[in-house]
C-alpha cells in the first residue's frame, strides 16, 4: 500500500500544479463561460496538456503514452480540480481511453491510443439514459443485421459529447432493460449518419450532450470488446472514472477549504477576524478532518488501481461516495462562511459548489455508491 507519492509522482504533481495555476486558472473557466465558448474548453490548452503527457498518462509507451499510471493521473486530476480546469481528461482519458486500452483489439488500439495520447482525438462515452447513473439500464438497441448492427436510442449527459470525434455507445444486443448481460460497446465516428448531438449547458459550465441514434449503422469492426459482454468492460472503465473524479474532487474541496480559511483570517466583523469565532473554528476543524480522511481514501483507491487489487470496485465506491459527501459539506460550509460575498458570481466559491455537485452525480451519486458498497461487501 502506497499512501505517499514517490519522487516521480511528486515531480509530476509539481508540474501539474504549476501548469494549471498558470495556464488554466479559474479565470480561464470564467472566460470560456462568459464567451459562451462553443467547445467548452481550450483546445490549445489540451494540446499543451498532451505535450506534458497528461493525455497519455494511462497509455503505454508502446502507443505513445507516458504510462505514469493511475496514481500519476490522480495527481494531475487533483491539481486540475484545484483550478476547476475544464478539459477532456474525464471523457477522453479516464473513460474513452481506458475502454480502448481494456477492450480494444490490436487494430483499435493502434488506431486510437496514439491519437488520444497526442491530444488529437476526443472521445465520449454515451452511457446514461436517465437522470440517475445506472449502467445496466440500457434500452438503446443495437439490432443485428447480417454482420452489421443498427443502433437506435437516446443518451443523455454524455460528457464532451458535442465535441468528441468518436463515441463509445453502450447498446443492448440482448437481454432485458436492466440486465447486466447483453450490453455491447460500439465505437462510432461522431459524424456517422443518424447521430444527432445536442449540447447541454451544465451548471458547472462544462459540457454534456444529449445524443440520439436513429438507425445508425455499425460494422463488426466497430464493436469494442465482445458482443453482449460490455458490462465487464464498463465496470472497469467506470471505476477508473469514479476514482479519477474523486481525485479531481479532492483538489476541489482542498482548494475551496484553503480559500475559506484564508477568508476567515482576513474578513473582519465586530472588529475581529471571523476566524476567531469558536463556532466557525470548530466547523473549519471538522472540515479539515473530513478532507484528510478523503485524501487517504483517494490515494488508496488510486493505489488499488495501480496495483490491480481486487478491491478496486469497493474502493471506487468508497472514494466516490465519500468525496461527494465531503464536497457537499465543504462547499456548503465555505459558501456560508463567505457570507454575502460568497453568493456573488464575482467570488469563486460558488463555482466550486457548482462543479462539486456535477462531479458528485457523474458516474453515480453518494446514494448509488453506498448501496453498491454494501452489495459488494455482501450485506
Amino acid at each position, binding site marked *: 500500500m502506497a499512501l505517499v507519492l514517490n519522487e516521480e509522482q511528486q515531480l509530476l504533481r509539481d508540474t501539474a500544479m504549476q501548469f494549471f495555476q498558470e495556464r488554466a486558472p479559474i479565470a480561464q473557466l470564467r472566460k470560456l463561460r462568459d464567451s459562451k465558448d462553443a467547445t467548452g474548453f481550450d483546445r490549445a490548452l489540451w494540446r499543451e496538456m498532451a505535450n506534458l503527457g497528461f493525455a497519455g498518462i494511462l497509455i503505454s509507451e508502446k502507443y505513445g503514452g507516458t504510462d505514469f499510471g493511475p496514481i500519476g493521473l490522480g495527481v494531475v486530476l487533483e491539481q486540475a480540480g484545484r483550478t476547476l480546469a475544464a478539459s477532456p481528461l474525464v471523457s477522453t482519458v479516464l473513460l474513452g481511453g481506458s475502454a480502448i486500452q481494456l477492450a480494444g483489439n490490436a487494430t483499435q488500439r493502434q488506431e486510437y491510443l496514439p491519437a488520444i495520447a497526442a491530444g488529437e482525438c476526443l472521445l465520449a462515452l454515451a452511457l*446514461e439514459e*436517465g*437522470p*440517475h*447513473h445506472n449502467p445496466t439500464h440500457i434500452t438503446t438497441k443495437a439490432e443485428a443485421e447480417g454482420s452489421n448492427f443498427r443502433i437506435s436510442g437516446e443518451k*443523455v*449527459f454524455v460528457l464532451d459529447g458535442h465535441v468528441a470525434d468518436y463515441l463509445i455507445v453502450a447498446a443492448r444486443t440482448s437481454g432485458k432493460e436492466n440486465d447486466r448481460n447483453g450490453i455491447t460497446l460500439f465505437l462510432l465516428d461522431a459524424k456517422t449518419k443518424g447521430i444527432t448531438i*445536442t*449540447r*447541454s*449547458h*451544465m*451548471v*458547472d*459550465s462544462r459540457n*454534456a450532450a*444529449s445524443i440520439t441514434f436513429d438507425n445508425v449503422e455499425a460494422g463488426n469492426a466497430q464493436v469494442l470488446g465482445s458482443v453482449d459482454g460490455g458490462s465487464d468492460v464498463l465496470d472497469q472503465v467506470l471505476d477508473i472514472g469514479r476514482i479519477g473524479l474523486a481525485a479531481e474532487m479532492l483538489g476541489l474541496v482542498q482548494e475551496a477549504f484553503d480559500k475559506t480559511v484564508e477568508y476567515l483570517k482576513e474578513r*473582519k*466583523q*465586530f*472588529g475581529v477576524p471571523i476566524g476567531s*469565532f469558536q*463556532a*466557525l473554528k470548530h466547523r473549519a476543524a471538522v472540515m479539515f478532518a473530513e478532507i484528510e480522511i478523503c485524501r487517504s481514501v483517494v490515494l488508496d483507491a488510486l493505489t488499488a488501481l495501480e496495483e490491480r487489487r481486487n478491491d478496486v470496485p469497493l474502493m471506487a465506491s468508497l472514494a466516490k461516495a465519500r468525496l461527494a459527501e465531503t464536497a*457537499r459539506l465543504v462547499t*456548503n460550509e465555505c*459558501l*456560508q462562511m463567505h*457570507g*454575502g460575498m*460568497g*453568493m*456573488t*458570481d*464575482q467570488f469563486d466559491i*460558488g463555482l466550486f*459548489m*457548482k462543479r462539486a*455537485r*456535477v462531479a458528485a*452525480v457523474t458516474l453515480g*451519486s453518494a*446514494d448509488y455508491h*453506498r*448501496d453498491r458498497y454494501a452489495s459488494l461487501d455482501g450485506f
Partner: protein
Amino acid sequence: MDALETFRQETREWLEANCPPSMRTPMPEEESPWGGRNAQWPNPDSKKWLDAMASRGWTAPTWPMIYGGGGLNKDEARILQQELGRIKARPALTSFGIWMLGPALLEYANEEQKLEHLPKIVRGEIRWCQGYSEPGAGSDLAGLQTKCEDKGDHYLVNGQKIWTSYADKADWIFCLVRTDTSKKHDGISFLLFDMASEGVEARPITMISGASPFCETFFTDVKVPKENLVGELNKGWTIAKRLLQHERDMISGMGLGGGSAGGLGGLEKAAKDYYGTDGEGRVASPALRERIAQQKMDGRAFSLTLARSMQEAKAGQGSGAASSIFKYYGTELNKRRYELLLDVLGTQALGWEGDGFKQDELDVTRSWLRSKGNSIEGGTSEVQLNVVAKRVLGLPD
C-alpha cells in the same frame, strides 16, 4: 345585513368591475408591478389595475386615508384579502414602500414627511430601495460607515452600500447613515433621498444564480435636504431594528414549502417521476425515500411551530421564545429541501440553460443556488444562534 357583509358585497362588486381578467391569472415574474418613475408595463392591464386599487387606497388598505391609504379596519382588510383571493387577483403593487418603509414612516416620520411620501407609495409613483448593508459590515450591520455630515443647510453623504435590492431600478432610497462616529448604535440616522441625486451610482451584482437583484451603491458627495431625516438624529437604529424584524419574518417563511418542488409537484412526486417506484409504489431509492420522509416531517413540524407561536401569542401564553428560532430553522430547512431536490432530479437539476432541461428543472437549479443566501441575508444563521444563546438561554458572553 351587517356593515361587514355590506362591505363584502360592495367590495366584491367593485373588484368584479375593476379587476381586468388578465389580472386574475398567475403572474409571470416580468409582469411584477413595481411601479415607479420608470415603470415598465409589459401588460397594460397591470397599470389599470394598480390605478384602480390605488384610487381606493387599497394598495395599502389599513393606512389612514389622509395619507392615501384605504382606511380600512382589520375586519374590512381581511374581507378585502378574502375577496381578492376569491378571484385570484394579482397583487396590484409590489413594493418595498408598502412592505417596509411605509410602516416605519407611519410610526416615526413627521407629518410633512408622511404627507409627502406615503401617498406616492400608495399610488406606486415612487419605487423605493433599502440602503442598509455595507461591504465592511455584514453581520455587524451597526458597524456601518457611510458618512453623513451636517453642512448647515443640507446633509452630505459619502460611502457605499451593498445588497441594495433593485437599487438600479429604484427612485428613492431609505438609508442608514453614520452621523456620529464616536458611538456605534447611537450614531446612526435614518435618511431618505432621491436616487437621481448627483453622486449616486448603482451597479448590479451578478449572483451565483445568474440573477442580479442586488446592487452595490456608491454615494459621492450626495446632497440631501435636511427635512429628509426621519426621526431624531442618531436615533435611526431604532427604526432599522423594527424594519429588520419584519424582513426576518418574511425570510423565515421560506422553510414552509416543505414538500413543494415548483412545477414538479411535491418532493415525493418528483422522486417517483425521476427515480421510479418499486413494486409497492414506494420511491425506488430507499435512501432517498427516507430523506424525503425526514424533510416532510421537519417541514410539517416547523409549520406547526409557527402555528403554535401564533396561538400562544393570541392566548397570551408562552414566552415567545420559539419565534427566535424561525429565521434559523426556516432557512436551514429550505436549503436542505433544495439539496434534496438536487438528489431527486439527478443530472436534470444541474442544467444552466438551453436544450435538454425543462423550465421547471432549470427553476430548481436557480432556486437551489438562490436558497444558499437565505441563511445569510436578514441576519446569518450564526447571528441567529448567538441571539438564541444569549437572549433565550441566557448563556454568558
